[in-house]
């Protein structure tokens, strides 16, 4: 008997050890187990509390089950009929109490955390308010107080509360910045709120978590938490936008012209493209200061000239199911030249020079590893 108890204990010890290995190993860039903000921290703490409680249950149930199954197994040749016990009221009452107590032990912190993390947040002056609109398959971020519209990359200052007012322009989406907060769905005709605070600067990954067909798997985003000073610089890039007249660099100038000639401007807005520029639609990603973006398209790959060119060359190859038209026929002799020009132009937007953007990525301390995902 003792032998069996040891074996069972060893089994559970092994699985517990295995399980903690898993926890140790799960430090991927999207892991919810290593949060970077108080909201996600509280949420995961709740999980960990339940997780430890559940080990008691698993060990107890599994232990008793395995013990009794082995202890009371039928020996060969044993045809006896055991006592036909129908029940035991005392026992029933006693073990009704066990799940009740466990449930209470879970319920109390749950309600507490729930109200701390999900209660409606009234925006205060120092809060950053962002209107988030989900589109198939990208994100639109508007900073109503700052007058900024951008896409797929949410810049926030470290330590300030960010309040997101979220809705969807087409189907359901779900905004899931897993390191900072739990997700909230984006639903047409409904405004949902989510708020979080980033504790440290860094680039945090996020992803759409509600099936939206087509390029759902590619509908990713970044939350870029910056120190206040860096955020101010970023903000300034949008607020003090210069109208870009004819560019000195002929390649960039060619790209600038191609931007309308190839029809890009019909959908995409670039603020300051020209005087009285009145095209581009809100239902398509805003490309203002595109050169400052870390990724293309929608958080999928690094915003390098090569990746951008590949994206423009064949959008379906990079992000199957998306709605970006293929602008050049395979046989078009001007394809590569025009792509180069457009890439040069797009990457020049918002950048003072080519190096600066790289520098800002380095400065945020995310390197290629996290940024490239």
């Amino acid at each position, binding site marked *: 008997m003792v032998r069996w108890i040891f074996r069972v204990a060893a089994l559970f010890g092994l699985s517990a050890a295995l399980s903690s290995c898993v926890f140790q190993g799960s430090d991927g860039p999207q892991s919810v187990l290593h949060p970077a903000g108080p909201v996600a921290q509280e949420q995961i703490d709740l999980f960990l509390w339940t997780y430890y409680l559940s080990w008691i249950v698993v060990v107890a149930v599994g232990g008793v089950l395995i013990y009794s199954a082995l202890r009371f197994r039928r020996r060969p040749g044993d045809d006896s009929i055991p006592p036909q016990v129908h029940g035991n009221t005392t026992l029933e009452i006693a073990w009704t109490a066990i799940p009740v107590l466990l449930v209470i032990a879970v319920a109390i912190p749950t309600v507490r955390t729930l109200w701390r993390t999900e209660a*409606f947040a009234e*925006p205060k002056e120092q809060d950053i*308010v962002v*209107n988030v*609109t989900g589109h198939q398959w990208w994100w639109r971020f*508007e*900073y*109503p*107080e*700052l*007058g*900024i*519209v951008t896409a797929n990359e949410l810049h926030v200052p470290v330590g300030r509360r960010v*309040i997101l*007012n979220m*809705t969807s*322009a087409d189907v359901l989406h779900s905004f899931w910045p897993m390191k900072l907060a739990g997700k909230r769905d984006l639903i*047409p*005709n*409904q*405004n*949902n*709120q989510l708020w979080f605070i980033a504790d440290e600067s860094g680039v945090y990954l996020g992803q759409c978590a509600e099936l939206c*067909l*087509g390029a759902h798997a590619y509908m990713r985003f970044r939350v870029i938490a910056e120190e206040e000073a860096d955020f101010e610089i970023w903000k300034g890039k949008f607020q003090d936008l210069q109208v870009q007249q004819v560019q000195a660099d002929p390649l960039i100038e060619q790209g600038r012209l191609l931007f*309308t*000639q*190839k*029809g890009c*401007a*019909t*959908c995409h*807005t670039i*603020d300051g493209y020209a005087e*009285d520029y*009145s*095209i*581009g*639609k*809100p*239902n*398509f990603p805003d490309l203002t200061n595109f050169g400052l973006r870390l990724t293309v398209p929608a958080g999928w790959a690094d915003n390098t000239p090569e990746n951008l060119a590949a994206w423009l060359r064949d959008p*379906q190859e990079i992000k*199957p*199911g*998306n*709605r970006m*038209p*293929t*602008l*050049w*026929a395979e*046989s*078009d002799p*001007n394809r590569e030249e025009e792509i180069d020009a457009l890439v040069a132009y797009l990457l020049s937007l918002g950048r003072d020079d080519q190096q600066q953007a790289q520098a800002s990525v380095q400065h945020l301390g995310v390197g290629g590893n996290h940024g490239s995902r």
Partner: protein
Amino acid sequence: MSHDHKGSSVGAYTFIALVLGVITYIEFAIIQYEVAWLNAAWTIITLVVLSVGKFILVVAFFMHLKDDEQTYTGFFSIGMVFALGTFIVLAFLFSIRSVSSVWARSERTPVEVQASSEHPEEAKPHHELHGIPEHLQASIESEGYSRPLAEIFDTARPKNQALSIAVPVARTTQSFTVSEAPPLFALAGQDGVPVEETPAIEVSAQTETAQGFDTELGGQVYSGNCAGCHQVNGQGIPGAFPPLAQNLPILYQADGGREYLVNVLLYGLQGPIEALGQSYNGIMPAWAQLGDDEIAAVLNHVLTSWDNVTLLDEFAPILVEEVATARSTNLSSAQVLELRNALDLP
């Protein structure tokens, strides 16, 4: 059977029926002749009590639950309790949801909160876009939420053309499309009945062959310059790029449409237009860098592709000379828009 005569007598039934009639009249009277001393809340309570009374009378006496086996009452009650419970909770969920969403909405568009309480018809949610230049708002208004219903229901649905899994049976070919299906309760010529009659597309046996224009060049120019936006199938992208298929014949046949088409290619077009019932507000770049022959060829190509030619009463290919003539006029894209607006489009 044991419960044969458990039911009440004819007299009792008559009495119940009388009571039911009277209650119905009282309900009617409460609503029809305003009762001064009943405020809204009490009117609703009275109505609910009266109809619950009717309900119970019918169930207890006409359905005999009063005298019948309790099992029936039990089963029926479970159904009623589940239904009432579930849907009262559901309605409640929506009411508290709306409270918080009004709150949240005030974050985005403060104007709407009052509107939604006063005039439900004005509560149409639309995107108030902060920090967007004033002149962009107009084009935003024509998009997304604020699209008028008729527009949404009368236009072809955007279909995700990006991925090709075999779709042998398209909805439109096999059956009615929705806009073709007559609405259940609509009378002809009223709302909901499709206004535009899409001409039936019949695959014509005699495909128009090259008649004095260069088909090959037209195709090349098209795929090199136009297909990116207007798509290989000429369907465009709804909301972004107007279709050429089915649309061009309409333009071509309008008075002055032929010249207009040439001008669009030479000088581009910018501003709000309508095509096949959908509105667009985009930019068509000028293609003056193309040669006269290329412009003529691509125009002839698009006018004869995608069954467009079958929609034309008569078709004379656009000549290189016409393009050359138009090139001398030197219009601006705004003037092209005026040209378009001057067309007598159906």
